[in-house]
């Protein structure tokens, strides 16, 4: 049985309340942390090898150590709870069920970073989770874990929840900061990075919900112990949101290094493919990461079993690998149309592009239109090559990673499933079951 660090006691009735959470060992890590020096906490996080759980996988301790220290300027910690990567629903689950874990993590992390005001930026759509968090925050104030002079340490912290209002791009850290400043969620041009100039031009750290929650076990067990879990540089546990054509969709906490095959087929996790069908493809880390056909997701190019870890999933580069990303694991069975699914993803990125920079603004819509043309039976071989060319002209040329996120699914689908695209082009009469009622955009139709 895998170790549970974040989802421990998740099924205990009332674990979302202060009383039950504390009865099951909650806030012990905070009490320990408040007896430490901020620098010692940062050191423990560094030792733990904890990496950002939002998608990029950047070492958290290192990110924290970049925070600038200009005299007299406040620091801010923002929790990125704008979970909107398609296929990912772990943060919502965690906040809904164990809000105090996030709050405890926020207090410890704010203390480590010297932040006296911190924000949880949550998706506006998740209003009911916002209410859960606000209630838990009030409980934490009442218990003396928030407010002035926390646990007699002299450390003050105010924690607020800030709602978004429907924009995937606000999951990008500088788009999120802009949004929190009350502006359009246009990502900023870097440098300067948030650690130097972030919220209101002050040094700021933005961390994902799961990352901040993971700080709690890191402190309670110590960085070295945490680093023993997992494999290589992929330390600790990771929440995987499993969905698509599997028997048991849901949020699973795995020790990094679990074989992908075991994750898909074991009854402890996904329980195999629904209806006993064959697995066709997997998007392993949220819709942005490259899609892999079943043989490549189960085995690395060298024929070794593929593991659920940052390194193993990216083994083979983009030629034959993918990324762990946010842990949004989308399984597709043999009945799935890769082209149709890709069109849907491309439509998503087209809809969510902020429109600031030209390659993303113009390119995402163009790709969607070309795919639509192919899907409706009007495509040519040239269109497949055109798609390939457009994605290449978006990737890496944009202000923020949304351009890459829009390009990678297209590139990987063509790379691994070109034959299927050609089938759509060569035998348009065979295209059945292609329904198209979505308007290209539900914003002003032009």
């Amino acid at each position, binding site marked *: 049985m895998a170790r549970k660090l974040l989802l421990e006691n998740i099924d205990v009735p009332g674990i979302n309340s202060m009383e039950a959470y504390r009865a099951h060992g909650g806030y012990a890590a905070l009490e320990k942390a408040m007896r430490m020096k901020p620098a010692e906490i940062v050191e423990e996080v560094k030792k733990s090898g904890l990496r950002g759980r939002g998608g990029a996988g950047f070492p958290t301790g290192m990110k924290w150590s970049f925070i600038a220290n200009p005299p007299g300027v406040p620091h801010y910690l923002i929790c990125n709870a704008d*979970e*909107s*990567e*398609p*296929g*990912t*629903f772990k*943060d*919502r689950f965690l906040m809904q069920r164990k809000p105090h874990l996030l709050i405890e993590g926020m207090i410890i992390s704010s203390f480590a970073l010297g932040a006296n*005001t911190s924000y949880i930026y949550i*998706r*506006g*759509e*998740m*209003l*009911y989770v916002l209410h859960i968090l606000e209630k838990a925050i009030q409980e934490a104030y009442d218990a003396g874990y928030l407010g002035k002079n926390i646990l007699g340490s002299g450390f003050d912290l*105010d924690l*607020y929840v*800030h*709602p*978004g*209002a*429907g*924009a*995937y791009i606000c999951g990008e850290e500088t788009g999120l900061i802009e*949004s*929190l*400043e*009350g*502006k*359009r*969620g246009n990502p900023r041009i870097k440098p300067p990075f948030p650690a130097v100039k972030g919220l*209101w031009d002050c040094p700021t750290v933005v961390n994902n919900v799961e990352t901040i929650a993971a700080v709690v076990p890191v402190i309670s067990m110590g960085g070295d112990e945490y680093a023993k879990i997992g494999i290589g540089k992929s330390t600790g546990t990771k929440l995987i*949101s*499993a*969905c*698509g*054509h599997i028997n048991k*969709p*849901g*949020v699973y906490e795995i020790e990094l290094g679990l074989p992908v095959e075991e994750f898909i087929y074991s009854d402890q996790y996904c329980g195999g493919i629904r209806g006993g069908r064959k697995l066709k493809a997997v*998007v392993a880390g949220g*819709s942005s990461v490259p899609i892999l056909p079943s043989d490549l997701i189960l085995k690395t190019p060298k024929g070794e079993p593929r593991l659920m870890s940052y390194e193993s999933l990216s083994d083979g580069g983009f030629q034959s690998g993918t990324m762990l990303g946010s842990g*949004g694991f*989308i399984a*597709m069975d043999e009945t*799935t149309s890769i082209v149709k*699914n890709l069109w*849907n*993803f491309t439509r*998503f990125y087209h*809809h*969510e592009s*902020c429109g600031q920079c030209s390659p993303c603004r113009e390119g995402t819509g163009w790709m969607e239109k070309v795919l639509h043309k192919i899907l409706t039976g009007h495509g040519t071989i040239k269109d497949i090559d055109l798609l390939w060319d457009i994605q290449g002209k978006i990737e890496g040329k944009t202000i923020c990673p949304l351009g890459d996120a829009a390009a990678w699914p297209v590139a990987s689908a063509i790379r691994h499933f070109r034959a299927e695209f050609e089938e759509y082009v060569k035998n348009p009469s065979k295209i059945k079951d292609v*329904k198209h*009622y*979505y*308007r290209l955009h*539900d*914003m002003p139709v032009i």
Partner: protein
Amino acid sequence: MHDLMSEKKNIKFPEDALVLVHRIMARYPPGRQKSAILPVLHLAQAEFDGWLSSPVMDYVASLLGIKPIEVYEVASFYSMFNLKPVGKCVIEVCRTGPCWLMGAEDIVTYLEKKLGIKTGETTPDGMFTLKTVECLASCGTAPMMQVGEKYHENLTCEKLDEILGEYRKNTEDHISHWAKDKIKSKEA
């Protein structure tokens, strides 16, 4: 023009909501009240019939001490803000990949047929508006939709019949996100 002026006069948050607005504004450092724009627009949308008219946005601008154009720019950026009138009950069906794999397409088709409207439209009786939205982070329970604050998951056509029936009976609490009663209950 006259109508607009008289409409403008009536646009004012009730006292309890105003208290909440000021409490939200206090969450941000002095001079950074613009930050309160998203939560306050949510409240305004809930208070003023589920959508943001330009007089409502001008009112929000005056509360936050910013230019009206700053509010228009922000409100038009985020997909949760309705810039046109909506029905009493806004149905938002997730249309993104994972839900699509699990049949969201059929859910939308069924709703369109059942309500007799297309996506983006409102029923003639003003009861329902049907919208499709992007991933609501509920992919494990796909297909799903949101009505007001509530997530309806693992949808089937039979389930939809039941849900629509419920809302037909009682739309009071489901005007939109950030329903009015929430504001009041929080103050109490």
